[in-house]
């Protein structure tokens, strides 16, 4: 029998609100890995971003978490995790990955070895560990292919963080039918170099249920049934979450990562 590596998929984002598309990303990615036969996807984690992210129209994390929890009630393998949203500050995605990888190791009862080399991919490749019988779990960042594109936006991502994500964890990108995300990889030297850690998953049904469109429809009083779970629709109605007013929240605000990274660059320039 082949040893399958246990794999946890982590999706970061606003989930404002969670839509059926978000859940589809997980289903597609899991099918992809199971067909490839190297991994056993054991868990999916949805990590809604912190309120301090400063995105326009971002409803409070409390609501976003609860909606995700409701949406995932019927899933036996995907869950929502509050850690990222509970932090005092906005956390870089790589920090969220580090946190969850730590948790993952704990739950797999693997004693952390001393030293720096505690990362799944390096471990698997490490000759010193080849004799080890333990299969180390892996954690990969699950995202839409549009995230690859955002890597190119100046100041949005820290270059070192991108590197850490693709070297120590790995990326799973679900691409829209008809689009070709490999172009974003070939445009970046870094992504190119680590493309063996970037898994491209093709979507076989176009799925463009963007949360922005959902909020827009809700404000107009249009139906979003069958695009997001019924339980989420009831919750939104009960708490009146998406209105003209809520959409203006953080208007004109600079996103937290842009603030932080550009501040750092200014500092360096000075």
């Amino acid at each position, binding site marked *: 029998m082949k040893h399958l590596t246990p794999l946890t998929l982590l999706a970061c984002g606003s989930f404002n609100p969670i839509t*059926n598309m978000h*859940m*589809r990303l997980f*289903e*597609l990615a*899991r*099918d992809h890995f199971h067909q490839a036969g190297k991994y056993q996807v054991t868990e999916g984690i949805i990590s809604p971003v912190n309120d301090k992210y400063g995105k326009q129209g971002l409803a409070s994390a409390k609501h976003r978490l609860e909606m995700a929890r409701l949406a995932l009630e*019927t*899933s036996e393998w995907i869950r929502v995790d509050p850690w990222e949203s509970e932090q005092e500050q906005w956390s870089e995605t790589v920090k969220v990955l580090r946190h969850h990888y730590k948790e993952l190791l704990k739950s797999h009862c693997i004693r952390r070895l001393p030293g720096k080399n505690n990362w799944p991919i390096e471990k698997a490749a490490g000759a010193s560990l080849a004799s080890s019988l333990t299969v180390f779990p892996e954690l990969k960042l699950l995202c839409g292919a549009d995230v690859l594109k955002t890597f190119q936006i100046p100041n949005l991502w820290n270059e070192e963080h991108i590197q850490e994500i693709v070297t120590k964890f790995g990326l799973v990108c679900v691409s829209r039918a008809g689009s070709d995300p490999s172009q974003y990889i070939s445009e970046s030297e870094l992504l190119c170099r680590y493309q063996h850690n970037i898994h491209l998953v093709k979507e*076989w*049904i*176009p799925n*463009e*249920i*963007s949360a922005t*469109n959902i909020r*827009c*429809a809700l404000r107009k009083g*249009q*139906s979003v*049934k*069958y*695009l997001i779970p*019924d339980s989420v629709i009831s919750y939104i109605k009960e708490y009146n979450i998406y209105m003209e007013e809520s959409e203006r929240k953080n208007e004109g605000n600079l996103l937290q990562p842009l603030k932080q990274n550009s501040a750092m660059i200014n500092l360096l320039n000075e």
Partner: protein
Amino acid sequence: MENSDHRTEVVLLACGSFNPITHMHLRLFELARDCLNETGKYKVVKGIISPVGDAYKKKGLISASHRVTMARLATESSDWVEVGDWESSQKEWQETIKVLRYHQQKLSHSYATNNVDKVAPLSKPGRKRKREAGGHLPVRQNQPNSETKGTPQLKLLCGTDILESFAVPNLWKPEDILEIVTNYGMVCITRTGNEAQKFIYESDILWSHKENVHLVEEWISNDISATKIRRALRRRQSVRYLVPDSVLTYIEKHKLYTAESEDQNTGVILAPLQRYAKEASKH
């Protein structure tokens, strides 16, 4: 709107295989209702899903009893869309126009009965009745048309593919298309308005009755075709969140979509093509 009585009540009917029903089918109804209600002229009161009968002979078509049950499960959470099984319980394949006639008749019956029971308040005398665009329609005897006060108007709900299929030889009878657009009307959900407008432009019948063909633009692309769903099921890929959970459970329980079921009706000519080709060759 205080004077909502002026709005014409509309019932939407969707015909198709529903093999199986997907979230896309259900979205068509939601989009159409929003769009018609927003015009302020219409009030959509009901939606009917009418799965085609087994005699349609489409490749991979599984039995109507399963398709009807799945549609019922899928509409359980809807307070306005229901399943009509008249079409699927007929021995022979029924032309869409016959399904429309049946449901319109049923509607006016139930409306008449309701009216006697409720003694609905008469609308003000002399109130201008809404004239349906198109004016002098060929009104049939058995056709309770829009002028019959209060009876909801039945409209055919479909995707652009139906408009496109009007041009396929022997698939539709021209007189049926004419009757659909004159006596009923169509509501077409389109991905991009352009495409649908082109089909309307290219058909003389549709063009002359275009005010009875309502185009509804989709704001989220939605291409959950049942063909793709069946393919994924055969390959054991997840279709979760694309079809309702209750439908998925039913499919799994009855092992509905397999390689064998997909071979059903292979090489058999579609019922409408058979029928009309025969008629055409007689002439």
